[in-house]
């Protein structure tokens, strides 16, 4: 900690150093009387010291009005989210397999490269894939970076060392973790719940601080598990009682999120609903899916329909006739 940053009487600085208080954090973590006892300074001096250090620590960032948002690449989906994904905070996309989570993430990797006036951020993306099946063919269309990891320690070192370097160079303005569930579900059993919670909290905090330091959206993909009996209802009670599946990783992870989206397949195919739209060749055989906002500070609980086709993920505005 840099004592030259703060304007303090040299006598005070000397007393503090002699008391072996090295960092600003320690100065603020000790109470007034404790500091007095350690440094033998007077009450007024200690009070002034703490306030000066506090002013140095709390660098107030300029708060601007409207945040820019990252578009999902489809106007219908963007309007569900009132513009797109925020630049700060962690967004989770949870859903069963083949609901379209990876497709949405890759589309985001594409849209982040658009110019700002089209809702992009004019930069690349980091796509961290933790599962074995990786759609490399799909990825050839995108110019993003990807890493394939197996043990969870690599994930931690990737997030804490390699990703910040990329972010600080400004080349990358989106981080996608696909998926976070895979690592934390198998590695820990139920009795290690505390240890798992600790790791989850630390991981979430790292992502959070990355997001705020570099104004970069973070998207995490999560899996779902069957909602079994009362245990799960208490654990993840977000008013999702009519759901048969709930996002994994419990309330510890849910507390870290800014926005939670859930995607799932419906039993309709596009051909049944909108024969006109389905007649286009790339829409053949598409199953209609739903994207639902479970919670977000600025959105009501709502949902919209979408399909996955050759050219990407496209929202569907019209409702089914039946």
């Amino acid at each position, binding site marked *: 900690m840099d004592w030259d940053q703060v304007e303090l009487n040299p006598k005070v600085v000397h007393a503090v150093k002699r008391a072996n208080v090295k960092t600003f954090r320690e100065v603020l973590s000790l109470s007034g009387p404790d500091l007095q006892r350690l440094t033998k300074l*007077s*009450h007024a001096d200690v009070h002034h010291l703490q306030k000066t250090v506090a*002013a140095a620590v709390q660098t107030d960032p300029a708060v601007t009005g409207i945040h820019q948002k990252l578009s999902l690449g489809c106007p219908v989906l963007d309007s569900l989210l009132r513009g797109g994904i925020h630049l700060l905070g962690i967004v989770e996309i949870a859903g069963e397999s083949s609901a379209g989570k990876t497709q949405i993430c890759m589309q985001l990797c594409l849209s982040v490269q658009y110019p700002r006036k089209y809702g992009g951020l004019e930069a690349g993306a980091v796509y961290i894939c933790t599962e074995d099946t990786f759609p490399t063919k799909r990825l050839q269309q995108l110019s993003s970076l990807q890493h394939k990891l197996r043990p969870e320690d690599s994930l931690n070192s990737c997030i804490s060392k390699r990703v910040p370097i990329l972010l600080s160079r400004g080349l990358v303005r989106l981080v996608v973790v696909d998926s976070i569930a895979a690592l934390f579900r198998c590695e820990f059993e139920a009795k290690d719940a505390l240890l798992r919670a600790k790791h989850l909290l630390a991981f979430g905090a790292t992502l959070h601080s990355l*997001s705020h330091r570099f104004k970069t959206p973070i998207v995490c993909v999560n899996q779902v598990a069957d909602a079994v009996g009362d245990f799960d209802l208490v*654990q993840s009670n*977000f*008013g999702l009682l009519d759901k048969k599946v709930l996002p994994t990783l419990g309330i510890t992870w849910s*507390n870290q999120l800014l926005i*939670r989206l859930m995607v799932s397949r419906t039993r309709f195919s596009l051909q049944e609903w909108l024969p006109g739209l389905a007649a286009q060749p790339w829409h053949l055989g598409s199953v209609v899916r739903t994207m639902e906002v479970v919670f977000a500070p600025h959105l009501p609980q709502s949902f919209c329909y979408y399909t996955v086709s050759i050219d990407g993920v496209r929202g569907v505005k019209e409702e089914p006739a039946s």
Partner: protein
Amino acid sequence: MMQRDVASFAFAPAVKVRLISAGFLTAKDICDLRPTELSKEAGISQQEALEVLQEVRRGPAEQGAAESRLTALELLEREQALGTVITFCSALDQALGGGIPVGKTTEICGAPGVGKTQLCIQLAVDAQIPGCFGGLGGQAVYIDTEGSFLVERVVDVATAAVQHCTLITKDTEQREALQSFTVETVLSQLFLFRCHDYVELLAQTHLLPDFLSQHPKVRLVVIDSIAFPFRHSFEDLSLRTRLLNGLAQQLTQIASQHSVAVVLTNQMTTRIGQNQSMLVPALGESWGHAATQRLILHWEGKHRFASLYKSPSQREATVPYQITPHGFRDVQLPDPSVTPADPSLTPSLNSRKRPRGEEGDPSDA
């Protein structure tokens, strides 16, 4: 007052020990001395002697709340004059005895998505409602540690509140007050601070008293959330407990000294019981004693409920609420936008008692 023990003053322990072992036992022994004499006799530095004498010589009226005499009636009147910040959900306001009390700390706990941030944003807007509509006409401080404060949502809530006041305006005083109660003024009187970790939060709390002295119109301080920065990176849980206790004390003091309502939000965590698990407020058992009042927001099925869990003056109660595009609202009453012309159906601001003392709102600087 002269018979007061030296040990009962707020001096540093080392100084106290020196004074007592030099034979100074009561205030009377000290107050007639000069600083140089005192420092020589007791073996303390000149500056310490000066501080000791200043403290001892201060009249009883200045020596802090413990010394000043206040009857219970005066205390009651003072509390009622402070007022409350309404939540716009009349059922909850009633359960709280009018709203979130000014001068005290209130904790709001709940699972993610249940509406804690929504309630905080609503309170930050409601604190600014002019006095003639039953509000406090004050400003608000919002300390965001999670990054969940979104300006667009504040605009929604502020627009609805301004519209509501516009609809129930009856006399010229209210019409005039409306001139200075617009969405723009609401945003400009809401001071936002962002803290990214617990050190910044501690720092901000140290700086808060000075800020509040410079902005005496602030009536509400929100910290959303206090749990987030304290739930990771603490290997030493006893350090965490100590820091949280210190923070709670500072905030309680700020609430009463500066006449602000302090609102803290907390997360929920799972506690594993014998054969079941339950959701309990985070930050540990001892944190439960920190705030004066505790409100727990929870789901029951698809509905949201607010339970007053701990309060020195109100009964425990559970009331339903909902989050609408306009903000935090009751459940039974129809949405204000649907019945624009019938103010009697909407959560009435006018029926809120006006601040005591017609001569003026205590918040008028």
